[in-house]
Structures are given as C-alpha cells and as structure tokens.
C-alpha cells in the first residue's frame, strides 16, 4: 500500500486512492467543486490543484492517484496562487446576486472566496447574460448565470438516476447546463440536484425563498417514508418559526450513510414531511360525546382508556393494532403492556390496497419505516401471518368477540379490505386511536390521543435490511401531543401494570436484553449510522 506525505503528514492508503481522498482521511480539506464522492470524477473545475514534488506542473488532487513516496503540498504559494486564479475565472460571469440567492450561506463560491480568494475584481467587461429562473420541473429551478459548469448535476442524472435529462450545451464561455430539448426532469431523485450543486444554480422550489439557511438548525433523523430508512437531516427554524404560521420544519436533506442511502434520498421522502405541521394534526385528546369528539384533559383521557382496556382485557375482548410506523421502543413497550393485560390479539400490519412504487435505487415498496422491527418484536411471537392481521381483526369484530380496540397510527381506509374493517370498527363501542393526523379511522374512534411525529421524539427504526438506526428529536411536540412511550407509561400506571420507562434509551436497553435480534445493541453503539441486527438475515417483507 502506498504511503503519501501531504503537508508533512504521512498516511498509508489503499492503492488507487486519489490525493483528495487521502487528504480527507487525515483531515486536510482540499477545495473542490466538481468532485463528489458519489459520482464519477470529472476533473473539470481545476479548484483542487496541488503541488507534487518532482512534477513540474500542478495536478488535480481529485483524479491523481497516490504513489508510494509521493510528497504533496496543498498550501504552498504556487497552489494558493492557482486557487485564486481559478476562483477569479469562475467568478468572471457570476452575477453575484447573493442577496436573492437561496444558496447563500452554504455556497462554495462564497466559502472558498473567503478562504482562498479575497481578490478584487479585475474584470471590466460586461458579464454574460444567461437564463435565470428557468423551471426544470416542479421541484427544481435553474439559474444558468450562477452555474460554474462543474457537471455534478449532469453526472448525477447519468449515473445515479440514469434518466439523462441534463447536459452541457454550447462551447467556451457560452457553455450552459440545460435540459435536453422537449423534456423536463422526470426522475424521482431531483431534490438531490439542489443538494449537490455547489453554487446556487440549481435550487429547490419547495425550499426557495422560505428562509435563509443560517436560520436553520439541524437534527439527525431517519426518513420514515419507506422501509429503506434513508438517513436525513431535519432542517428546522425555531428562531423565527413562530411567525411563519407555526411551520418549523423547512426541509429534509440526505445525511450520508454508505450502508443505506449513500448520499441521496428520494423526492417522496424529501417533500413528504408536510403532514407534520398540517392543519389536520391531532392536537389534543378527544372523546366522543353526543356524536362529536369533544376535547378532554389528558388525565381524563388516560382514565377512560385505562378503564376500557382493563375491563375488556379481563374478558378477553381487547384487540390491539400496532403499526410498523412505530419505533422499536414503542412496539416493545406496547407489546409488553397489552400482552401482560391479556389482549385477545395484537397485530400491526395493514396490507395496503395497492403495492407501493419501488425502484432499484432507494425507494422501497413497503412504505413503513419499521416493518422489520415490528416483525422481530411483535410478529414472530404472535404467530399470525402478517397479511392476516387486519382480516383477523375484522373477523373478531364482526363475530362480536371484540368490543374494545386500540389502533396505533394506522389509517385503515387505505388498506386492503379497508372498507370492511371500517364497517366493523363502527360497531366497536370502545375504539381508542393514537395517532398524529386525522383520518377516517380516527374520526370513527371514541377516544383519540395525539401522538408525536418522528421529528418530535427520539427512537429507532429497523430498515428492511435489518439495520437498526437511531433518530433524534428536532422540535417540540405540536399542541398537546405526547410520545407514544409516555402515553403507554401512563396507561400502564392507570391499569396497575408495572410501567416501562419513558426514555427510549432505557426501553431500548431492555429490548436488547429480551430480543436476540437486538442483542448487543445500545444507543451508543448504534451511533449515527446504525447497526445490522443479529441472527439470520431478517425476512424481507414484500407487498403482494
């Protein structure tokens, strides 16, 4: 393995490693625009020029593999001068409209200019005018004047999505990035284009002008949109959010994880967070009285629920439908609680009426983030095949064996045989619903509890490969919503059952002790990138 010396520090790297990657390993950041770890090397921006001893000219660090005994300087006068010159060229036609540019604050032209440029403009010629505000699709907008032609976006559509929408047209200083004639962007990963664009040429229309990036705070999270469990950052604005009609979550963007989503995430996940702050969020506990759901206090709601549940459980007339949208901790706590009370049946799966979209890149057909977790924690013990959960529930209700049901997070309406279940639910006298948003199942219920969304709590999801991943809380719960763990704990106390802790970390420790799939795991070990579960490979849940 070759050993390379960069700025006086030596490192031994794999054969074929480039200088830029080797430098990154020892914490030296070589400025670059066109290089992206998830894409093919282009070598077009010339920003990463470095000096190699024995080589007369400067070389690009992103495409030069290290050789044994190579000595590289990234901070010599020659290199600094070259960077300044490259930046000066890149800025020749740049419109410098930073005040109206959404990228300002996370723009690498700004960052590198402050670090390496700081040169006065020597250009007396007029700047070339190009297309501004060119709409590429419903998600992405292009400003050709700001573009530095790094070709990251072109390579992304060629290599990752293989949809080939973008290209570089014309020559010399007239070169522009544009769509091929007659088409729009039509892949399901467009949002990534705005992420990988190092300048403000490609921006996100959904995010556009909503805030400035320096207002944002970031929380590490996991996308709950499908069973892939892409690692994401939740960008939220609480400093001024109170003025923006209560909308705090501004955007989701991918958090690199080589084992799960690499550097990307799909548009469905990226733009699919609006339910968190939608007007149909359940904000307070409610109880059906005289044909309508009236707001009641938490203690009252817990008291009613505990009474209903204990009465029904004593006569084996209690059914519970958990959800693969719940975290591992919530599933474990709920399963333990309702089993110890003596529920007639505990299920979690509602077969969707139509299979979800699926592709070879990231998107999974199973639109639940924690189906594998539910399988390992609840499903395996219950012995009922997953597909039958809802049908069994409906049968029991129709036969009058069940008069109290607790439903978590589901909207039964969208499920296969949903109408049948809804009809059966109407007959159930004591229907308890815990969820985030109003839907037909919730409105049928006699007692409704507001639960928190994933950005409002901590927890873990198990993705379809059996990777257990942590997510962190970003914002305060909306309204009176509470984490399911806290609701379950209060219910357990009210039902005179030994309660489990409210803290997800403590619950996870218990879970890891009890379920072999999670053995050896704890929150510290899971870290930011998660851990694969133990035992044989988990069965993959496919939607038929």
């Amino acid at each position, binding site marked *: 393995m070759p050993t390379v010396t960069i700025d006086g520090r030596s490192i031994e790297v794999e054969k074929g490693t480039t200088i830029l990657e080797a430098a990154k390993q020892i914490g030296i950041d070589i400025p670059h625009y066109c290089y992206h770890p998830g894409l093919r090397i282009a070598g077009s921006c010339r920003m990463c020029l470095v000096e190699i001893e024995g080589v007369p000219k400067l070389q690009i660090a992103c495409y030069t593999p290290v050789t044994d005994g190579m000595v590289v300087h990234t901070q010599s006068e020659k290199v600094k001068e070259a960077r300044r010159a490259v930046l000066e060229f890149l800025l020749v036609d740049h419109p410098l*409209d*930073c*005040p*109206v540019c959404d990228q*300002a604050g996370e723009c690498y032209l700004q960052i590198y200019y402050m670090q390496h440029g700081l040169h006065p403009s020597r250009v007396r010629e007029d700047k070339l005018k190009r*297309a*501004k*505000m060119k709409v590429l699709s419903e998600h992405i907008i292009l400003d050709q004047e700001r573009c530095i032609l790094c070709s990251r976006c072109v390579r992304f559509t060629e290599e990752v999505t293989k949809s080939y929408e973008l290209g570089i047209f014309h020559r010399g200083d007239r070169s522009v990035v544009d769509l091929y004639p007659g088409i729009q962007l039509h892949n399901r990963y467009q949002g990534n284009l705005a992420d990988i664009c190092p300048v403000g040429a490609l921006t996100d229309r959904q995010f*556009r*002008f*909503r805030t*400035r990036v*320096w*207002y944002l705070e970031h929380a590490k999270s996991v996308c709950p949109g499908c069973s892939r469990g892409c690692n994401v950052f939740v960008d939220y604005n609480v*400093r*001024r959010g109170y*003025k*923006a009609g209560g909308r705090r979550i501004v955007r989701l963007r991918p958090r690199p994880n080589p084992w799960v989503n690499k550097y990307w995430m799909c548009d469905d996940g990226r733009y699919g967070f609006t339910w968190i702050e939608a007007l149909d969020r359940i904000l307070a506990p409610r109880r059906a009285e005289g044909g309508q759901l009236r707001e009641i206090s938490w203690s009252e709601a817990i008291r009613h629920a505990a009474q209903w549940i204990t009465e029904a459980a004593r006569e084996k007339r209690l059914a519970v439908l958990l959800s693969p949208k719940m975290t591992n901790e919530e599933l474990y706590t709920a399963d333990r609680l309702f089993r110890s009370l003596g529920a007639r049946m505990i299920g979690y799966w509602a077969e969707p009426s139509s299979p979800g979209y699926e592709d070879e890149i990231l998107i999974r057909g199973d639109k639940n983030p924690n189906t594998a977790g539910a399988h390992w924690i609840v499903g395996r013990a219950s012995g009922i095949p997953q597909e039958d959960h809802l049908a069994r529930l409906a049968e029991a209700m129709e036969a009058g064996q069940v008069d109290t049901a607790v439903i978590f997070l589901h909207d039964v309406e969208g499920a296969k045989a949903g109408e049948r279940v809804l009809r059966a639910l109407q007959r159930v006298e004591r229907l308890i619903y815990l969820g985030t948003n109003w839907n037909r199942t919730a409105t049928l219920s006699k007692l409704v509890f507001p639960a928190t969304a994933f950005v409002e709590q901590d927890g873990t999801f198990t993705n379809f490969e059996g990777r257990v991943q942590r997510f962190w809380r970003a914002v305060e719960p909306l309204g009176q919503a509470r984490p399911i763990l806290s609701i379950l704990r209060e219910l357990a106390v009210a039902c005179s059952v030994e309660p489990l802790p409210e803290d997800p970390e403590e619950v996870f420790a218990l879970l890891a002790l009890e379920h072999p799939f999670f053995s050896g795991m704890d929150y510290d070990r899971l870290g930011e990138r998660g851990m694969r579960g133990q035992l044989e490979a988990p069965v993959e849940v496919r939607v038929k």
Partner: protein
Amino acid sequence: MRIPQSERELTFWERIYLPEVIRGLAITGRHFFVNMARHLAHLLGFRNVPKGAVTYQYPEERRPISPRLRTLHRLARRADGSPRCVACMMCETVCPANCIYIVAAEHPDPNIEKYPLRFDIDLGKCVFCGFCVEACPEDAIRMDTGIYDFAAYTREGMILTIEQLLSFEPAPYVQVPPQDRAADPGPIDARQRFGVSG
C-alpha cells in the same frame, strides 16, 4: 457593589422637611419669573436684557434635527414605485432586537427575482441601532424620515407594515449653517418642517 452614599448627616433644619420644600419651590419660581421677565422685556424691545431660557413649544415647534439622526424607518422605492428591497433578510438577520419580519415571494421579473411580500417592523421592540440600514445591500431600508414621535394604543399598533414603510418620504435635508450651529438656531414650526398636521 457598594452604593455611594452621602456621608453628610442631614441637619435638623433639613430633616423637618417643609422648609426645604419651600426653598425648592422658591428656586423653581425664581427661574420662572426671571425667564418670564426676560422674554417679556425682549418682546417689548429691550434688546440689551439677557435672553431668556429657550423653550420649544413641542409639538407645535420642533428642534431642527441632524440629518444623521436615526429616525423612523422607511423602505425606498424603485422608479415604478415597487419596493427596492429584495427580501435578502440581511436586516432581519442582523437585527439585535429581532423586530423585523420578512416574507419573501417570487418576482416575475428574473432580474429582480425576489421581493418582500411582508416586511414588518415591530417598533415596540426596535432599538433604533441602525444595523438594518448598515446591513442592507440594496440601500432599501433607511432611517431618514425625520419622524421620531410615534405611539399606538395597542402592541399591534406599533407594528409597521410594508405599505406604511413604503409610504414614508425622506425628511428634507436642512443644512444648518456653521455660524448657527454654535448659537441655537431657535425653534422651527413643525408643520412647516415636516408637513405634519397638528
């Protein structure tokens, strides 16, 4: 921290209180009558009598203000009357009192691109530091209206909206001649100066 206090004990005469009150009233009264007499004498043409203390009959009369004085904000307009502001939110960012609130929107002209849909300044919070004026890259927000008396009956009434901010005009620039700067230039009629009614 030790609070500095007068070392001197009050005398008996001071402690019985009433004589000191009367003494204070006498001082105030003396100033009042002396000034009245001097103003009266000037009115009657006795120019060699010293001038009485200058008093502005605010709000009818106003002191001239320095053109550098930071007064009520306004938003500058383009030639067509639309706001010059491009909603870059620099002022909102720099504002130490968090009193500015901007909502940006898409402008149909690609050369403008962004404009403020809402631009609120909460005068109840504003500390008149002028950082917003310094930060503005478009010279769109200015504090040169010459207006410094504003009040409202509610907290909401203290919030200036974009329509109000755009409607203000800059105060006319009045150069105070150097020879008059030492001597007080005397009161100017406020209505004439600002076009304010009342």
